[in-house]
């Protein structure tokens, strides 16, 4: 437990974007799975992700971030070519 002596004056947060260290991936019940043969690298999944958890691989295909993805499924709904499917986290 932090005491008042440990926190900075005015409770200022000194690291920008420190929420990145918080794991929101635990909230997920379904995970997106890419079928790369259907993916056309359009990037709609990237632009529509509310959690900024889709990036790029070196070969140009999208890469999802397991640490932050909450599994909302917007990427799967918006994918034109149906390259993204949601599967249960338990599988």
């Amino acid at each position, binding site marked *: 437990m932090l005491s008042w002596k440990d926190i900075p004056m005015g409770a200022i*947060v000194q690291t*920008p974007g420190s*929420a*990145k260290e918080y794991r929101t991936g635990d909230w997920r019940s379904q995970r997106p799975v890419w079928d790369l043969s259907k993916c056309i690298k*359009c990037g709609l999944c990237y*632009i529509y992700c509310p959690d900024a958890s889709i990036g790029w691989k070196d070969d140009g295909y999208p890469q999802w*971030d397991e640490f932050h993805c909450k599994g909302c499924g917007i990427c799967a709904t918006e994918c034109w070519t149906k390259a993204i499917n949601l599967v249960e986290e338990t599988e």
Partner: protein
Amino acid sequence: MEKYGLYTPRVAPQKEYFAAGHRACVGCGEMLAVRLVCKALGKETIVINSTGCIEIVSSLFPDTSWEVPWMHTLFENSAAVASGVESAIKVMQRKGKYADGKVNVVAMGGDGATLDIGMQALSGAMERGHDFVYVCYDNEAYMNTGIQRSSATPYGAMTTTSPPGKKSIGQQTWKKDMPAIAVAHNIPYVATASPAYPFDLMEKVKKAAATKGPAYLQIFSPCPTGWRSAGEISVKLARLAVETGAFPLYEVENGKYNLTMDFEKLRPITDYMKPQGRYRHLTESDIVLIEKKLHEQVQELRDKSSR
């Protein structure tokens, strides 16, 4: 070729100024809008944020999602604080105590903070002509405190303080036309945007930031929790709202209206209402009444933009 912008997600700015790890609900349309707005604004930005969902989910101590200077204010005074920040920068630049160059001062708030509680501060800041952008994220009720009605709630919608029943249809008043109120202040730029059209949204934000003087943006933000809809269709709902006429996209530059998304034939409003639990109680005749009113509003905007 210069006339045409290049619109593909790949060329959008890759740097995120609104970091992942925020605690928004699964499928939140508002955080998507915030992310796109921050992408469009870039690094030279100071954000002033009213109380609301954005503030709650992005700033749980000791974490912050913001990678730009960010200030939390009360519900009512984000526009007043923004005008103070803008004036302070202007004076300090004149005295040589602050680096030269343009700084985007952006006030953000939900629809409750903008249309209800913070309206007098916003009205004052717009009237004084401060060089700032006000972004209103419109999720059509006070979602953060538990879905109470606001003046942005559309007619017939169920909220916890406008419950439908034998004597009530849900929300009994029509949505307040805040962009028209902003236009009435004779400010240089007013626009509505939707996260389902990300490039349109980012263009409008850039335009608003480049405008000298106050600019007002109202951004549609689907709320799966409050609208009783599934999280994965948030963006789809935002698109349907534009296609059915529930939230028309337009911009007003110096009083000149321009519909940015116009459709020859609007989709039936049931497409938009059916996936949402908040409209479940509406009868056939109620839906016809709502559709008629929305079509009238869109037609009015068309008439204004063709003038």
